[in-house]
């Protein structure tokens, strides 16, 4: 089955535009720009209209937005949450990698 444009993998090798990121996280483009100003998101590309973000951040931004709504967080707290979420994702992926390399006891 090939990837259809309505079925989108959110992995680090794919990129999303500011419009797509804002749509996914129910944010305005101004709010995305604010998160970039706080250093919470690091787009590539010069002008905001040309920015692209790693699709791997979509899930993180969605979580951060839920935390903002439910815990009534400010932008700097959201930025902090995003950096922690990124760290947690990296560590979880490292744990998965290391667990995969752990051998099971030999079977008899």
């Amino acid at each position, binding site marked *: 089955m090939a990837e259809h444009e309505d079925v989108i993998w*959110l992995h680090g090798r794919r990129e999303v535009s500011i419009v797509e990121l804002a749509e996914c996280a129910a944010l305005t483009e101004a709010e995305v720009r604010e998160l970039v100003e706080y250093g919470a998101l690091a787009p590539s590309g010069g002008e905001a209209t040309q920015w692209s973000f790693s699709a791997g951040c979509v899930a993180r931004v969605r979580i951060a937005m839920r935390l903002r709504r439910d815990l009534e967080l400010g932008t700097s707290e959201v930025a902090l949450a995003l950096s922690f979420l990124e760290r947690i*994702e990296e560590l979880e992926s490292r744990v998965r990698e290391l667990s995969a390399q752990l*051998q099971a006891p030999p*079977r008899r």
Partner: protein
Amino acid sequence: MKYKDYYAILGVARGASADDIKKAYRKLAQKHHPDVNKESGAEEKFKEIAEAYQTLKDPEKRAAYDQLGTGFQPGQDFRPPPDWERQFHTGGTGGGFSFEDLDLSDLFESLRGGRGTRARPSMRIPGEDYEVRVQLTLEDAHRGTQIDLELMVPEYGEDGGMRRVPKKITARIPKGATDGQRLRLRGQGGKGTNGGRDGDLYLDIELRPHALYRPAGHDLYLDLPLAPWEAALGATVEVPTLDGAVNMKIPAGTIAGRKMRIAKKGLPKPGGGEGDLYAVVQIVNPSVLNEREKALYEELRAQSHFDPRGHFAREKSHG
């Protein structure tokens, strides 16, 4: 309708100030938010807390809640007092359904100030996104699959009343999944209102543990048990892969822990290509030896100069 004690849920007195209610909510929400707390039951607990707060933080909803009366036990069936609906309940559930069917939260959701009465009729409202954790087998991730989901989703009536209804969704998961990967299915969430876009369905994918393979990204690890003589003398062994068995040549003198790569026999990656399969050598001894095997091992012991612990002595003399 079942009674819920919103004050007890937040751990505050009935006369608590708005500020105390907010503080109590924040403290509990930080502890139980499902994006923070991964323990089972956290999500239900958080929903309960959020529901209590949604009602008690709004002075009008709080007054309406207080007017329901006191003295009910949580979970007890009750009806609002006879004049309650006339006093508070302008939109929503009026004509649609009876109090018996109703959840207390739906009642407050549809009170004055709820979605139905606040939104202008022409306002575009995007549909809700759904986010679901799904478990796949490695085989399903490998070939792509289709899964049937049954979700409880909010539905808004013409009058703005809200209730939760079951919704069945068939989601197609193309090749490319692995543990921890997320998939966005555009437009498969809730329907938009007044021309608002449809919501999306987000799938958080988790792979079920497999009897043979352990995934690391799109690579797979497999333990490859060898008999001591296969490892020592070399052999050709059959290795199972997700695409069927392949023959693998084991060089003579292979040691335990050696990682042997079988290219492109891991999981397919999104957008093309595949991960690799790593067969990790285990050296396994028979637990019971027959007389002949025992004699051969004894002969090997007598003949061999191999010292598997030679480095102990070397380390000792250096240290």
